[in-house]
């Protein structure tokens, strides 16, 4: 079993995928590292697309929990989250 990582629209558009999976257990640093790796050295593009972007784990913004220390386990869903528009 694995962890699902959902990308923002801009990340998805750039990478040509909407989500990918990583092996559990993992950390959010792993998610960042593995997402960055998909940019194959284009760090500036990665930084630009993830500026003012947070993480949500299973629907919960991590700043309401353990922040970047939030442990990830099997079947977890991690989403990159951009600041919202109005709805």
């Amino acid at each position: 079993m694995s962890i699902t990582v959902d990308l923002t629209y801009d990340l998805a558009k750039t990478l040509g995928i909407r989500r990918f999976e990583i092996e559990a257990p993992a950390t959010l640093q792993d998610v960042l590292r593995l997402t960055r790796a998909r940019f194959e050295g284009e760090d500036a593009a990665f930084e630009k697309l993830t500026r003012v972007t947070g993480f949500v784990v299973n629907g919960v913004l991590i700043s309401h929990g353990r922040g970047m220390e939030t442990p990830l386990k099997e079947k977890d869903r991690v989403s990159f989250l951009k600041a919202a528009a109005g709805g």
Partner: protein
Amino acid sequence: MIKGYAGRILEVDLADRSFAFKPLDEDIARLYLGGKGYGTRLLYDMTEPGIDPLGPENPLIFATGPLNGSLAPQSNRFAVVCKSPLTGGIGSAACGGSFAYGLKKAGIDILVLRHQSATPLRLEINGDRDIVDFLDASELWGKGTNATQVALGKGRNHAVIGPAGENLVLYAGIVSDERIAGRTGVGAVMGSKRLKAISVTGTRKLDMEDENKFKDYTKWLRQLFRDHPVLGEKLRRYGTMGIVNTTNARNIIPTHNFKYGHHDDAMNVSGEYLEDHGLVGVKSSCIHCPVACGRDVTLEGVGRVKGPEYETAALLGPNLDIPDLRWVNEWNYLADDLGMDSISLGATLSFAMELQERGLLQSGLAFGDPTGIGEMIQDIAHRRGLGSDLADGVKRVSEKYGGKAFAMHVKGLELSAYDPRGSFAQGVEYATTNRGGCHVQGASMYFESTGPLTINPQNLKLKAEIPVVQQNLACAINSMVLCIFTTYGLIPKAVHQMNPNGFLHRTIALLFENSGPFYRLVSGLKLMPLLWYEKWLTYITGEKFTSGRLQEIGERIFNLERMYNLREGLTGKDDTLPDRILHESTFPHLRSGHPLDQLLPRYYKIRGWDEHGVPLPRTLARLQVRL
């Protein structure tokens, strides 16, 4: 007369085709502003308890407020008030477009329509000559809202119904331009009066207390809105659908009739996706609005039409397991043209799908399958076959076919597209809002799940306080009458630039979350204007407005709505949420749904209501709510 008001109520009797201009009551205007507030006061005073919402005794009240007819951004909205045929309680809806502007230019603050015409009728109101023409509308009867407005022509401002209103669909709306007063079935009440359309014209000037100050302040605010990250950038670029990816990540986008809060392909109905696939232009549907949140899309065989809003995209997309913009665009157009609320429509369709899935109803509709949906929308609007049942909304369908546990409504009004299991304050707001399960009577979720600075949405802190303050503010805004999107501008640009996972965000959120009574205290301060609404109102009317006074006016309106509901037979037991929301978890770390039972007593206490949700005499006395 207080400045900012035309000073006149136009009362029209559709049965004997007479009309009269009556003076606006200044005392009521001071207590209730206008719009929804004044309209609710009139409804309460004009009607006997227990009237049939679709009978002749139910008045249909179109109400503007002191900011309408000015150049204030997002101020061209009107409120419609009546007894709701959908909920049996207070019916109210607000609408953009241009009709509010037209009414005010005609020198009319409030239009009251009484009784019923025997035959299809339309009204032409000339505010300069003070005449009302009663015209035969037989040739328009049956036409969609678009064709009707085209037939009525340009140069006047229209409010019309479509076939859904004519056929008394209980969630039919009233359309002005490309906007709709969608909720609570106000279009059915207009249809019951056999009134197809109202056209208004006039060239009267709004009299302001200090026009120069108002203009200078408005100019400054227009620029602030243009530079704002949400109003000037995100909403302008993506429209309200720009929030889809946020609610999906937050696990609160209705999916499969609210069984889930996330859909793997929700991105396909997002504002970003629309921009890349089919957005043909950006335009504002409401005059004098610098935000321009309306989207245009192209429909095959129809051409360029207004695209969907977030609510429509969510409830006709992931909620039906059909996150496909082509279908959402088509069904959105159908709902608008037929003149019905796409929120209630989407929730009713998903309910019919779940009934089919569980073998309780042979609806012919299935999750994930667009087959038959367009035809069913037409059947609903024309009350054909099963469509006639679905035209009565989720509550009544559940009473007939079963499935009350997953009937997604509050007080009969279908839930909008923010699942409260991931937004506890929004859940309290849904449960207690007088018109039923609606998000724009407070928009508490903005502080929990969708805004740039959000508190933890899943603990009990501030979850009873936020709805109280927000509902009061929304009542006041809907009585000025302004667009609730103006509140987005209250959040400074700097907040939008904070990292949602950063230390600063976390610290401010924690402080806010623990502010408790202090939050209500600050919101209710009567010392100075804290928001721009007060300054606008003061410059226009000459009356002194503070944030506390606005809170008090909003609270007064909310309590009057409450007393109306109680008078019509609703009780505290109606302040609840669907069983699915209360008992089924959509979050792996939670064993149940929304903790309403832990929050409702605190909410009642803050409101000054007893344990059954009835306003205490001292609360009504403090607010000067006369019964």
